[in-house]
């Protein structure tokens, strides 16, 4: 959905018209946001920095799933396992072979992409719920491999990953990680947004909106679905690699189907098929449990409900998501759109 343009903002070329940040104001807002983000480590404490880092990692993975599910319309319940493939790739390369972190991260992406490609193969024949089941199978197969291929993956104990060093600079603090993670997150977001404006992105959306019509105008369904799986898993692998470097320990419990569901929740709450939505969703789903925890801890001092906190948190978490979706079925991106449209058009919306 295109936002109404401000008065007098005319474009003379297709390129200008297609710009992601079409006005001076929006470009200024972007610059201000990036500047604030860059300064964040100075102001934020360790805890908040840690949360921001998790948001950044989740964002990379969510942009990936959004390419597959949001753009191309292929549902995946195996995204968490693809993140795991990235994590284990970094784990193995860094601990066993002492590979350069940049190479290891790229390798994580490529490895996940290859695995994603393999499990994307059924997508030509099956759609919808059936594809969800097939990708769920991928999730369980990979989880099993993480657990059982012990010589490679360390089995249930998992692997310990050393903090990386880039060009002699050891990335050993939350603040240093922050810049690494945010750089990757910014690249991933820009990549996903730009993908949507290319031929490939248009083919993805065509497949989502009407696959038979897409085939009839010459889109090779099989190739593009596989490409979507590969791209999406590449992002997942990057997220997994970052996560491995950041938390320093990976084990099979970190990449269960719950993680896949979390990623789906991010892009659905954010607004399917919207890059901005995936960004909002990743931040929202990452922060919500932590904020709930803070809130309940604050209340818990003078309420005798200490024992049921964990359960209560899950219930409130679920309830909030359901209530939010009832109110705004098209997600945070639509909410943002509505707010912007309201201010732009007030008081004469039509």
């Amino acid at each position: 959905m295109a936002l109404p343009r401000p008065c007098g903002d005319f474009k003379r070329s297709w390129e200008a018209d297609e710009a992601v940040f079409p006005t001076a104001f929006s470009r200024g807002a972007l610059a201000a946001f990036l500047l604030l983000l860059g300064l964040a480590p100075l102001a934020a404490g360790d805890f908040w920095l840690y949360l921001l880092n998790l948001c950044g990692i989740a964002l990379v993975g969510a942009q990936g799933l959004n390419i597959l599910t949001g753009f191309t319309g292929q549902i995946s319940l195996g995204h968490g396992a693809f993140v795991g493939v990235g994590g284990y790739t970094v784990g193995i390369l860094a601990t066993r072979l002492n590979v350069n972190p940049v190479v290891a991260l790229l390798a994580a992406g490529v490895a996940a992409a290859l695995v994603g490609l393999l499990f994307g193969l059924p997508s030509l024949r099956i759609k919808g719920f059936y594809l969800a089941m097939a990708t769920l199978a991928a999730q369980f197969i990979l989880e099993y491999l993480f657990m059982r291929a012990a010589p490679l993956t360390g089995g249930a104990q998992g692997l310990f990953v050393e903090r990386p060093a880039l060009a002699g600079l050891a990335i050993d603090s939350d603040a240093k990680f922050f810049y690494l993670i945010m750089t990757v997150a910014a690249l991933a977001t820009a990549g996903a947004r730009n993908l949507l404006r290319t031929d490939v992105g248009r083919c993805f959306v065509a497949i989502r909106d009407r696959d038979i019509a897409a085939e009839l105008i010459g889109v090779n369904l099989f190739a593009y679905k596989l490409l979507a799986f590969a791209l999406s898993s590449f992002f997942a692998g990057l997220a997994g690699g970052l996560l491995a470097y950041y938390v320093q320990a990976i084990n099979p419990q970190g990449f269960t189907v719950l993680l896949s569901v979390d990623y789906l929740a991010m892009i659905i709450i954010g607004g399917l098929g919207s890059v901005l939505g995936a960004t909002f969703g990743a931040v929202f789903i990452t922060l919500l449990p932590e904020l709930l925890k803070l809130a309940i801890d604050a209340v818990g001092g003078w309420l005798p409900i200490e024992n049921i906190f964990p359960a209560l948190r899950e219930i409130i978490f679920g309830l909030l998501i359901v209530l939010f979706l009832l109110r705004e079925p098209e997600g945070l991106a639509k909410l943002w759109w509505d707010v912007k449209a309201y201010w732009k058009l007030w008081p004469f919306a039509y």
Partner: protein
Amino acid sequence: MLLEINNLEVLYNEVVLVLKGLSLAVPEGRIVALLGSNGAGKTTTLRAVSGLLKHENGAVTQGTITYQGARIEGRPAHEIVRRGIVQVMEGRGVFDELTVEDNLRAGLAVRGGGRRAAGELETAFGYFPVLKARRRQVAGYLSGGEQQMLVIGRALMTRPALLLLDEPSLGLAPLVVGELFRIIQRINREAGVSILLVEQNAQMALTIADHGYVMEGGRIMLDGPARELQDNRNVREFYLGLTEQGALKSYRDVKHYVRRKRWFSS
């Protein structure tokens, strides 16, 4: 009046104003045709009446829809069906995997289930004999014309007082269209069902209608008895494609001189 729409405004997505003060009326037992070019707001009008706007993120912002003396704007669709207004959507919409008969029985849901439906089924088969011949077939395999007949038959199962038809002739062969319109006319005469008919095929629609409305840009531009509309200079040229002499218009002439629509001066 069975249905009266007064000064209706419909807004999509909180920014797109589609109906800008539309008024029309459907008298009891009559066929009313609603004509207009693409994008005039015909389908939106039907959606507003049948309660389907919210699926498209639309809403009635002003005006009233009165049916049998009661205000119905903004009521949910299933309730409006219960009150006796049933819409047949553009582009068919049969339940693909049910048989013809099960499709028809599904139309009885509004009256509490389809176990005893012999009477209604016979009525529907009476209007559409071709459906009876195919009653055990899966609906997805019917031809386009048969599917259109099936959805109209299914709508009749609810025993409506008012039938809203959205372009029933869409994509059908001229012969089939003729047959369909004769049946629509029979439904109106024999069962006393009032009909609000949205059509691109203005010629056909005005042949069976009692009264016609012409829409443009979300408003009614012209209305009158169907006979008069058929003779109206503007309607003849812009909707029936006929010139003053009654001959088909040639595109060669169009190139040289395009007559503008001037609704109020003709």
